[in-house]
């Protein structure tokens, strides 16, 4: 936590500075276009980073978010504290602190993630081109003993991803729809909580991640996500993840997500279904 606090202080100071100069108070984008905060800190849905950029910063504006996410499945509990800072509807910087408690085995796995996302083309709402972003997530595992014991090769790793997202304002049933596709090159085992690379495979793998959502109205969205994952460790098969979510955007300052996730088998413990919740505050 000390490290995160150290990182957050300049961010908060910077934020306060910009708030006081009212450059940020404009919230220049339409509600919900900032999306939610994922388990890895990047803006998106829950499990999948989207091409959306966090906060409501339009061209020439700053914005930021802080978020707390928690997933409770049968044998594990994941908590994520995250913050983002975005500029110019172009850049998104994120930091996340993950803790994964092994409820039945005892102990926990920890990881810090530093992310950056850059919009290369398009706009989420306007024009024919989907919003396209490229991003990095640099991950530093803080509890490498267990991952190393099960065959992980590295305690740090960097995911590289490309995302495309498009919104149809007047889609099927005259509802607003969102679709996002993310392609990620990664060596991470269970996002990196079990380290990077493994005895079974130690090279980058390209993984597909998909999200589709329908806005019932401007404040409520329902959707599904699917995330492919690699298989680098010989000791247990790693499974793809999916979730069904409800997002609530009562106001530009607050967003809430509730999801039912199927994380399947993690580190050999089967049937890891459960509830995921996320609370995001935007400034």
């Amino acid at each position: 936590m000390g490290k995160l606090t150290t990182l957050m202080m300049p961010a908060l100071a910077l934020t306060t500075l910009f708030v006081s100069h009212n450059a940020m108070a404009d919230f220049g984008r339409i509600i919900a276009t900032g999306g939610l905060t994922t388990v890895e800190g990047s803006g998106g849905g829950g499990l999948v980073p989207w091409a959306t950029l966090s906060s409501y910063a339009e061209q020439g504006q700053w914005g930021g978010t802080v978020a707390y996410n928690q997933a409770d499945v049968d044998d594990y509990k994941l908590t994520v504290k995250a913050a983002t800072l975005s500029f110019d509807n172009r850049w998104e910087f994120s930091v996340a602190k993950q803790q994964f408690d092994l409820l039945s085995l005892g102990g926990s796995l920890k990881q810090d993630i530093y992310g950056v996302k850059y919009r290369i083309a398009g706009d989420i709402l306007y024009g024919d081109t989907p919003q396209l972003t490229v991003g990095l997530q640099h991950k530093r595992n803080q509890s490498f003993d267990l991952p190393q014991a099960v065959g992980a090769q590295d305690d740090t790793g960097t995911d590289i991803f490309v995302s495309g997202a498009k919104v149809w304002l007047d889609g099927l049933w005259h509802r607003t729809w969102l679709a996002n596709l993310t392609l990620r090159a990664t060596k991470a085992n269970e996002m990196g909580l079990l380290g990077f690379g493994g005895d079974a495979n130690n090279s980058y793998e390209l993984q597909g991640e998909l999200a589709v959502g329908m806005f019932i109205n401007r404040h409520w969205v329902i959707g599904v996500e699917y995330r492919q994952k690699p298989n680098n460790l010989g000791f247990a098969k790693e499974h793809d993840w999916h979730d069904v979510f409800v997002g609530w955007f009562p106001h530009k300052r607050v967003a809430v997500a509730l999801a039912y996730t199927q994380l399947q088998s993690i580190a050999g413990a089967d049937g890891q279904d459960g509830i995921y919740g996320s609370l995001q505050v935007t400034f």
Partner: protein
Amino acid sequence: MIRACLIGFIIMLALPANATERTLYDELGQKQGISQLMEAFILEIAEDERVIHHFENVDIDRFHRMLSEHICDLSGGPCNYSGESMATVHTGMNISRAEFNAIVEHLMTAMDQQQLPVSTQNRLLAILASFHKEVIHQ
């Protein structure tokens, strides 16, 4: 089973093309509904310090009349928009992306005030969003 679902889905996709659907013009309450909506919209804009400077020398009655005529035309009503193109109208205004979004939000608020259903709101928003490129940074 999957095939049946797929066929059902394709039929649903085809449904909106059905001629029985009401025109957006009707859903907006025809000329009177559009006129009221545009009045509410202009009142919202008038209270916004971020964008009001763009309307300083605008003849509000004419603006309301032209806006209503344009929406009537775009929504399939019995009107022919007689004004200039959106690109021409906004030339020299240098409207930013944030200002465009602010105007969109005022329309959303106005549509909420008129208690228009979500589907009607989305139909109108989709039409107006297509003018984005012709309006910003002109």
